[in-house]
């Protein structure tokens, strides 16, 4: 038994959790009191409550120390764009493999838009002469599938990385981590929206044969691109750097301009037209930066922080720092949605893409409160502020470099803590596009997808076991 004494306070200030009459009693004595709006933790499930008690109790000092390191890495890691590469040259993926979003998936379980995107990629790779042959190769396993996340890459929506796909290469020097994401395909008929038309295939070829070479030429001629520095500036200009990347894309193109005009490539005007119409160009660069950051943060052992959050259109998966295990649940529908005319909920595919990695680094929903255009999507800037605040209640800290002018310079929520998520049953809500679930007509709307609680609950219970 320790010989320690207690530090008794000289003046009392109270936090009241439970019956309000106790708060009134303190207030009546002229002492300050704050009432907590409490709710039953973990939905009242006894196993979950017991795990929360251990993880918030005797294990909290060790977990909090690990979380502080994770937060430090997420907040300070400098992610620099170091080049453009062909996937096969940098990614550890053998032969005819396609990298897709979310956790591992059997082709039979792939949703329609993902299947179409794979088909387009097989055609663009030149492995098959027509769609039927592409389907046969996919169904037979001649072309294999792997999660991009497990290869150190991330892909948006239904996008696929094939061996010849051009990717951004982003490094975090402090952690020695590197991550990849495919160059953005832009809008129109595109594979990443689940389309497999000749135009969608042609776009993949354009990226590989014209866009990537020009960007690769330009990059060494300009100063290095610090991804989160650009993102922070763009948040101040109204981007959430997820569904809206207008400002960050403009900043990037302005930065690249001297290098781009230096080119004498015959297709440079064609590429410039593509780039100037691609208002989501920065999206995948930000995702690669986020993945390089979470890869570094994810090396910390004993933390309760979520460092992977990804969906493949069928399954939602998360991973915690220090553990490679995926925890899965069915991909949720996209709700609160605005649909293109003539389309509705019956046409929408479930939530898909690795872009939720942005929510883990203080962007996307974390920055919604600063984005009037996200507000338009979710029902007003007040609703966008709610999105950010809700995420804040389940995060351990705030970004010191990404701040919200609309909230008086408050940092965006950073460091998603699985304990808080499960305690409060509040999962991240991610604004996202909606793809057609049958006919390959691409994006049909946009809305908000709420991550399923089940995978967070399973991750919490596994963490409790792992730290026992």
């Amino acid at each position, binding site marked *: 038994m320790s010989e320690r004494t207690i530090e*008794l306070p000289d*003046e009392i*200030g109270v*936090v009241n959790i439970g019956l*309000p009459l106790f708060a009134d009693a303190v207030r009546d004595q002229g002492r300050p009191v704050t009432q907590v709006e*409490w709710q039953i933790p973990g939905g009242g499930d006894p196993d979950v409550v017991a795990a929360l008690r251990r993880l918030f109790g005797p294990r909290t000092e060790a977990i909090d120390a690990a979380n502080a390191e994770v937060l430090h890495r997420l907040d300070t890691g400098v992610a620099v764009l170091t080049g453009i590469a062909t996937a096969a040259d940098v990614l550890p993926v053998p032969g005819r493999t396609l990298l897709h979003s979310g956790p591992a998936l059997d082709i039979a379980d792939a949703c329609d838009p993902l299947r179409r995107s794979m088909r387009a990629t097989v055609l663009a790779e030149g492995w098959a002469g027509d769609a039927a042959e592409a389907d046969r190769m996919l169904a037979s396993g001649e072309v294999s599938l792997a999660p991009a996340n497990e290869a150190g890459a991330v892909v948006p929506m239904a996008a696929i990385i094939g061996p010849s796909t051009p990717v951004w290469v982003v490094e975090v020097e402090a952690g020695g981590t590197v991550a990849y994401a495919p160059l953005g395909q832009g809008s129109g008929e595109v594979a990443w929206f689940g389309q497999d038309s000749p135009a969608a295939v042609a776009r993949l070829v354009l990226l590989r044969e014209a866009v990537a070479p020009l960007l690769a030429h330009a990059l060494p001629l300009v100063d290095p691109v610090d991804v989160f520095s650009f993102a922070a500036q763009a948040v101040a200009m109204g981007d959430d750097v997820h569904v809206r990347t207008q400002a960050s894309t403009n900043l990037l193109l302005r930065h690249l301009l001297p290098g781009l005009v230096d080119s004498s490539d015959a297709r440079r005007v064609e590429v410039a037209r593509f780039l100037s119409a691609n208002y989501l160009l920065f999206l995948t660069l930000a995702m690669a930066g986020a993945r390089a950051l979470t890869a570094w943060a994810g090396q910390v052992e004993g933390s309760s922080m979520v460092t992977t959050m990804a969906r493949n259109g069928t399954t939602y998966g998360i991973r915690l720092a220090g553990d490679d295990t995926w925890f899965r649940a069915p991909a949720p529908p996209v709700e609160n949605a605005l649909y293109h005319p003539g389309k509705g909920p019956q046409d929408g595919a479930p939530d898909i893409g690795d872009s939720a990695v942005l929510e883990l680094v203080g962007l996307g929903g974390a920055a919604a409160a600063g984005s009037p255009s996200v507000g338009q999507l979710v029902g007003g800037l007040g609703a966008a502020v709610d999105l950010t605040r809700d995420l804040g209640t389940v995060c351990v800290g705030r970004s010191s470099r990404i701040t919200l002018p609309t909230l008086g310079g408050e940092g965006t929520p950073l460091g998603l803590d699985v304990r808080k998520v499960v305690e409060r049953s509040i999962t991240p809500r991610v604004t996202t596009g909606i793809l057609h679930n049958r006919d390959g007509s691409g994006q049909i709307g946009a809305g908000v997808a709420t991550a399923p609680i089940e995978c967070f609950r399973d991750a919490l219970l596994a963490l409790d076991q792992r730290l026992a």
Partner: protein
Amino acid sequence: MSGQAVRVFKSSYRDSLLLMAATVAMEGADGVSWAGATMATSRGLQDLAAAGVEDPALSGLGANDLVLAVKGDDDADLDAVLESGRAAAFEASGPDQGESADRPPVSVAEAVAAQQDANVAIVSVPGEYAAVAAHQALTAGLHVLLFSDGVPLEEEVELKTRAAGLGRLVMGPGAGTAVLAGTGLGFANVSLTAPHAPRVGVIAAAGTGAQEVHTLLDRWGVTVSEVIGVGGRDLSQTVAARMALPAARTLAADDATGVVLLVSKPPEPAVAAQVLDACGQTPAVAVFLGVDELAGHPDAPLAATLEQGAVAAARRVGVSPPALTAGLQDAVRRAAERLAPERTLVRGLFSGGTLCYEAQVILEDLLGPVHSNEPLRADHGLPAPDGAHVLLDLGAEEYTRGVPHPMIDAGNRIELLREVRESPDVAVVLLDVVLGHGAHADPAGQLAPVCAEVMADGGPQVVAYVLGTEADPQVRSRQQATLEEAGALVPATNARAAYAAAALALRRPELVEEGMAR
């Protein structure tokens, strides 16, 4: 013919007080045969099923979903009844209230961020969830008053082990009161004495025993520097004084504390002796109700009752308490003359658990077996045999399920008082009336008319003790006067009330002078 109606509010946790308010609002409506407001916990859903409520809306609900259900006559407007329940349940904070920017804190960490000078958390959520909140409060650097009951023993040990390592208090579980730095927490009385008066530090389980010694000392001009509640199990072998030990060391090291007063139900002797040793050079007095000598520690400074513990502590800081029985013997004699010969039994209806226990200790000594729901001995439990003395602790869980604690509302006690009216063999009804923050605004005003009814036409004598101070919101002297005007005897301490009850039952007025230290 009858009908039923159900309404579900997702993610709308309401505490039990609001649930009761909603139930009451619905039950009171015309044509309603049954009404319930409950969270959709497994227990809540069982209750609904037991009441025969069935509705497809009840499937797939979780513990944070609120259910309002009502059954009644076919012609009753059940939707309107549900609406009245909704209004009651959401009175304090509607779901549409407030904008995002002014959201109240939803966690201890957020509350501390909003109130930097916070240093104590009061936790009164249901016991199965309380340890999570208490741990979070410790993590945020706060001391914890853990009011919640039903916290498992191993969780108590886990909490206190962690708290001791952090240099923080976990007062409880089941701690109803504490005083830190002069501020009353929980059900607490307001001190009158000046800060420079002689000081006593109290370590107690933290129920009405702590309140009794605090208010007695305060009344006698002795300042109570701190009341540290450690919960009813702290002096057990398992918990091993994990809180009482550091608390004793802390009070011993505090120059302003002249005496440490330790209050507990009968403890594990070796553990209690350790705590007394930890007081070091600071004089200590212990009250272990009913324990005259600590096994293996014959020199331990014990007092038999809360009253005598307070007296001893006061004397140790140089204060002589005033007479405690002035006029009481005469009053008892007059009352005894009025009682019919067959009236010989004592019936106690207590709101304070330790007050009930102290009265049992005194009455068993003088009257023989006393039966109770919280008895001194296992074989003195309920149901009591005919012709037995019975003291009930109405604050115990079995009496407070679904109804307010008797300190908050006397409704339950009033019903039991009326029942006593029908018993021809009861001589004395013994009551406690606890004042202070959290207690009813006018408990004597609630009880006095019923006391008068009970005593009318040759009924039993009511003896009521008022625990409180002049500075309490209810004002002790006013509460006493109300009860005296109704004809009740109002002694100076809970112990004196018990002695007066014995004196009346035996028609031996001189017994009111028993149990006083020379």
